């Protein structure tokens, strides 16, 4: 069974204090790993897709990396507006059609 584990469950940072969120996965035949940001009461907002080990993607203060067993979301010099829950999802073939398996997320709070 495909599994996705995110850590930590919650993270509190001071503005400007860089850190990383982890997403560990066990899937057979990874087709892609997706990062989303979710604000309270809203649907997840797509951030990045990573397809192969060694791949990196960047967007403003966020950088996502991928290895064969895990992905990291690095946050450099975060601002209060980066506060949100960050979700990781993996895609692997299931019954001939690829669906997403989500982790439970990391809740990030950035204080001014």
């Amino acid at each position: 069974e495909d599994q996705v584990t995110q850590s930590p469950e919650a993270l509190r940072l001071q503005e400007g204090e860089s850190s990383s969120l982890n997403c560990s996965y066990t899937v057979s035949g990874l087709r892609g790993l997706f990062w989303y940001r979710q604000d309270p009461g809203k649907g997840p907002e797509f951030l990045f897709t990573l397809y192969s080990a060694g791949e990196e993607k960047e967007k403003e203060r966020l950088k996502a990396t991928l290895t064969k067993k895990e992905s990291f979301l690095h946050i450099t010099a975060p601002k209060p507006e980066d506060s949100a829950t960050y979700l990781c999802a993996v895609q692997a073939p299931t019954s001939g059609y690829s669906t997403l398996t989500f982790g439970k997320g990391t809740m990030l709070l950035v204080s001014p």
Partner: protein
Amino acid sequence: SQTIHQWPATLVQPVGSPLSLECTVEGTSNPNLYWYRQAAGRGLQLLFYSVGIGQISSEVPQNLSASRPQDRQFILSSKKLLLSDSGFYLCAWNTASNQPQHFGDGTRLSIL
């Protein structure tokens, strides 16, 4: 540009009552459509997905059903709601199975 709409945003229903949640997508044709449920402390759980009109795949056995009467319309239904049906229901779409899924802003369903 493509947009996705879900309604209602919030809903309070008594146990045993019927349910109908609607999701529509604009700006694209023949999207893949998905229904998820997000419960407190748990990851997003895929309920149903559809690759075309009238084509519905169910991921988990439950008290709910889904229909796709039109290309860009996806409906989640129940004949009799249970307390365990409470949660945050999200609709999503993509253009191909390996592309990112894009989410609506969800419906918060409370069962009394």
